[in-house]
């Protein structure tokens, strides 16, 4: 029985767009102007949710990788890859919005005493090696396995790194960009809505990418079967994208 990939994608997309619209409205018209930083402070509603989602994404990527190693089903590796990929994009977003915020309120494009920003830089540097690592391994099964080992190690590293950076800068300077505790009601609500909206965006984009990849894999499997199995030439060039192998799920069920 072939699963229906992409089921629920439309509903999810609509929900996401709706929430994003709501969030924008709240940010610009509902949330009060902050005393010290003025309008610039509104970046907080983008920067912090992006950070939270990216971090969660990396950890989730590690959890999905654990499933891959336990079940040897390449679909878990595909999910892990997509989630990590998306989290990296959100991490870049975090760095950019954080940098803008820092420039606006502190005058510098980069500040070392903001532990979140610093941790993110390190994590970004680490996860930026994920795709080169995959690309450097030709054997698809080994590529998936090694990528999973990396994802789990890096996923465990994320909290460790935060603790280390926090510890190292805690006693030096007060935090530049402020913390998220003690938010007045209206700000808290706006923040929550923003967080949910961006989380939905993350989920939708991941689902979109997964659906596209699964569909492509199904098409390839069908073409192979029509052409009489391995008449299809092997892909030219190497790929960092995981391959759903012929035994990795119903997509290529009978071919085994």
């Amino acid at each position, binding site marked *: 029985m072939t699963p229906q990939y992409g089921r629920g994608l439309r509903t999810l997309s609509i929900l996401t767009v709706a929430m994003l619209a709501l969030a924008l409205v709240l940010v610009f018209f509902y949330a009060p102007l902050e005393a010290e930083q003025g309008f610039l402070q509104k970046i907080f509603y983008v920067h912090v949710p992006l950070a939270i989602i990216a971090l969660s994404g990396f950890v989730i990527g590690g959890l999905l990788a654990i499933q891959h190693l336990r079940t040897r089903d390449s679909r878990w590796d595909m999910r892990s890859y997509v989630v990590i990929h998306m989290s990296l994009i959100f991490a870049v977003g975090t760095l950019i919005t954080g940098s803008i915020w820092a420039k606006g309120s502190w005058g510098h494009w980069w500040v070392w005493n903001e532990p979140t920003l610093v941790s993110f830089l390190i994590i970004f540097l680490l996860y930026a090696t994920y795709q080169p690592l995959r690309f450097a391994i030709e054997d*698809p*099964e080994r590529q998936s396995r090694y990528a999973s080992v990396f994802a789990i190690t890096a996923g465990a590293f994320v909290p460790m790194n935060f603790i280390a950076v926090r510890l190292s800068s805690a006693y030096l300077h007060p935090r530049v960009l402020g913390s998220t505790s003690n938010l007045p009601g209206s700000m808290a609500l706006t923040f929550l809505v923003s967080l949910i909206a961006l989380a939905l965006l993350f989920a939708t984009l991941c689902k979109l990418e997964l659906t596209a990849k699964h569909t492509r894999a199904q098409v390839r499997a069908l073409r*192979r079967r029509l052409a009489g199995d*391995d008449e299809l030439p092997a892909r030219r060039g190497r790929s960092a994208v995981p391959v759903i*192998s*012929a*035994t990795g799920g119903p997509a290529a069920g009978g071919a085994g």
Partner: protein
Amino acid sequence: MPDARVPALQLEGLARNYGERAALRGLTLTLERGGTLVVFGPNGAGKTTLLRILATLLRPHAGRASVLGSELPGQAWQVRGRIGLLGHEPLLYRELTAHENLTYHARLHGVGQERVREVIDAVALTGREREPLRTLSRGMVQRVAVARAVLHSPELLLLDEPNSNLDPAAVELVAPLIGPGAGPTRVLCSHDPARGLEGADLVLGLRGGRTEMLRPASEVSRADIMELYR
């Protein structure tokens, strides 16, 4: 204690993929203990993949594989010490001497020093065993590799073109260890139809991972084998 009634190999629909391509598909065969299976086929046909699966180095992706009574991959650990692999690589450290290499493997397999002496003598390298392998000729290194493969007296020998790099005298020399009369069940990959058929019981012809031919050796002629390579 080896159970003589259980076949050495029982494969059913054995398959292994390389990404989206199939390296080995739907292989089914049975090999009795003490028998010799010879595998022919062009490069890329899946011969090495098959050997590595049987050696427990690769996991099967589909189908069943029972080696010396143990199911792979679940019971691979049971069978590991009873298989000897002689592949394209000698699996030896070039900077170490023959003696050091063999002692290392002996310790890994729980085999004593006297056996190390024995195999060194058997491959006629007594006197050269304290020299680093990188100073020995390719033929001698191959002999040390043979010694390594039979060091732990395996019940099943997996041989991938074992006579490459060996001159005719050396081939004769190692015959009692890995040749047709040696004793253990053997799976032999060969490109040499004449030599390969010697002492063979079962012949498997592979092409593109598929079983093109599976017959008792008595029913196979040289011409049949040449067909595979066309």
